[in-house]
């Protein structure tokens, strides 16, 4: 069983039966222990996803979005180590569950779709083999029942002639088609939460719009929650209820989508929005990759002390170089982590 070592003790086990968000991530830290040193890819991240809600996670390349979302299923790749934090999903801290329990949750309660459809389907197994295997493992249905269900799902994700597709191999499908298969695979067991890590980045612009439409539609129909990781402000604007902005392994700001776009507080969020041509809330089909802000994100191998953003921040004060801001609420449902917005500080070691 692939699962990364967890070295954090659980300070307060979740109280069973207590109503809470579907998913709550608290103080998550994931570090890569490489030969060159420790890469602090995710370094104290909190966010929550309510039932039926879509959370958008945005941030520049390398800000730790993928590592954070993989860690929700305890799947960050080998040199990764979960150093601290909790991932509470449906009342259980997943980081403490035995591998067997985790395997029951993966694919059944929480499923994932991947960025690159070309590499996320096994090249030597047919579509049918890949889909039915998962169904049969989780539900124990017969081969024929599994095939029928798989065909049903292919129809649901907008693939015509599903019976023929089931016999095909990934290399015989187009990129958009592969991504639809990937989505169908994630939806096989009707999960409560769908993780989507840049589901459209690798696709053509026209296909991107179709896939987003499909996701929005499916979320409605299956009343799923979703975590949508992306570079693209246009995508979150259109899809997300709440947005978490990440920078260099930490969360800068979390708020409702409207608030993020209309009243952003964190200087980084503002910089992000300013560098995007005016965002209207409808997806125009244009590709909007996160714009370049002057300077480069810090090297997480040698993360600077203080606020990670200080060297690129237009509002940086001397204290920002020394003190790491901690997240705090500036309004109900709106938290920011910036000393200039009144965040409490945390001495950096």
């Amino acid at each position, binding site marked *: 069983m692939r699962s990364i070592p967890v070295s954090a003790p659980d300070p307060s086990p979740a109280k069973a039966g207590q109503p809470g968000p579907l998913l709550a991530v608290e103080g998550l830290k994931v570090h890569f222990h*490489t*030969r060159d040193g420790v890469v602090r890819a995710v370094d104290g991240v909190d966010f929550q996803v309510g039932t039926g809600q879509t959370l958008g996670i945005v941030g520049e*390349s*390398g800000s730790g979005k993928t590592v954070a979302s993989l860690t929700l299923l305890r799947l960050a790749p*080998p*040199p990764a180590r979960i150093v601290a934090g909790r991932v509470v999903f449906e009342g259980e801290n997943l980081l403490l569950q035995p591998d067997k329990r985790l395997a029951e949750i993966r694919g059944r309660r929480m499923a994932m779709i991947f960025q690159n459809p070309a590499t996320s389907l096994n090249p030597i197994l047919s579509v049918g083999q890949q889909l039915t295997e998962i169904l049969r493992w989780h539900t124990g249905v017969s081969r024929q029942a599994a095939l029928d269900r798989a065909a049903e799902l292919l129809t649901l994700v907008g693939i015509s002639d599903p019976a023929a597709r089931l016999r095909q191999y990934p290399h015989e499908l187009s990129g958009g088609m592969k991504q639809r298969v990937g989505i169908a695979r994630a939806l096989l067991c009707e999960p409560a939460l769908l993780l989507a890590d840049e589901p459209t980045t690798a696709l053509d612009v026209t296909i991107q719009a179709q896939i987003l439409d499909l996701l929005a539609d499916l979320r409605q129909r299956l009343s799923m929650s979703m975590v949508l990781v992306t570079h693209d402000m246009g995508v979150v604007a259109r899809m997300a209820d709440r947005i978490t902005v990440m920078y260099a392994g930490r969360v800068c700001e979390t708020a409702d989508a409207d608030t993020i776009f209309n009243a952003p507080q964190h200087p980084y969020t503002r910089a992000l929005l300013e560098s995007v041509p005016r965002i209207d809330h409808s997806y125009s089909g244009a590709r909007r990759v996160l714009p370049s802000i002057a300077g*480069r994100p810090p090297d997480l191998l040698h993360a600077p002390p203080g606020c990670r953003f200080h060297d690129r921040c237009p509002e940086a004060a001397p204290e920002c170089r020394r003190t790491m801001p901690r997240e705090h609420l500036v309004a109900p449902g709106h938290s920011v982590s910036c000393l200039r917005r009144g965040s409490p500080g945390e001495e950096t070691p």
Partner: protein
Amino acid sequence: MDADFASSPVSVLATLQRPPAGVWRQAWHRFRRNRAGMIGLVLVTLVVLTAIIGPFVAPYDPNDNAAMLRGASNAAPSARNWLGTDRNGYDVLSRTIYGAPTALAVGLGAMLIASLIGVLVGGVAGYVGGFTDEALMRGAEFFMVVPVFVVILAVVRLFGIIVVGTPLERIPNFNLMTIILLLGLFSWPQIARMTRAEFLRLRHAEFVEAARCIGTTPREILFRHILPNALPPLIVLVALGIGGAILAEAMVSFLGFGDPKSISWGQILFFNYQSLKVAPWACLAPGTAIFVTVLGFNLLADGLTDAFNPRVRA
């Protein structure tokens, strides 16, 4: 994952000054932390030192078989002969020590020949392209699938007969040189393929394009920009090839097709294999020497691979 940084004009200028010397220093830095590579380096150094100073410290002359006259052949290790004596009364330790220069000559000689041919063929194929490329690579493929070892055995034996009565016969160690030549002739295809691949990759690399834009001559591009950058993977291949050639010569000699006039580990094995039961040390000593040397070069190559492409491993 990397930002699209390499394509910014700044970095093109930065890489314009040939492969930065830093590449080598970085590689050495990484190499030093690679345990396997360092063990390999130590073993190879050991063999090289043995080859250089061995003849001065070896307890006996390699052709001194006085023990046989004393009736002390196949004698077990003792204070007098640390690794015992062999069937012919030679001191096993001395002969094993004298085998080191032969082994290195075989390894280095064969790979020198292979590199010369390989870089030339691969470079021309990669640089010229088209029909030349196709033809040369077909040829390389031919040499790659020929059952090398079997052919070498036959050729060595037949060549030995052909030269009888010609002036070539008087060249010392002519037989060994034939073996080296043959091993070289059959090991160039890998080097040619790698060189070609590197040349194809580098021909359109940004810093080469940039050099071309500012009017650097093709010759200079070839020697100052492409070749040095193609070097790291070639060095790895050569290190592996040295070990391989040494092993091949040992096998050829073990089968009795070696050069009777030179002292090689394979020869010692050939002479003593019949008396394995009574004098195992006479086989184990040269066997271990071959093992240590080949292992050294293999580990060295492993460390070098790692040092040159840090991305391969986490």
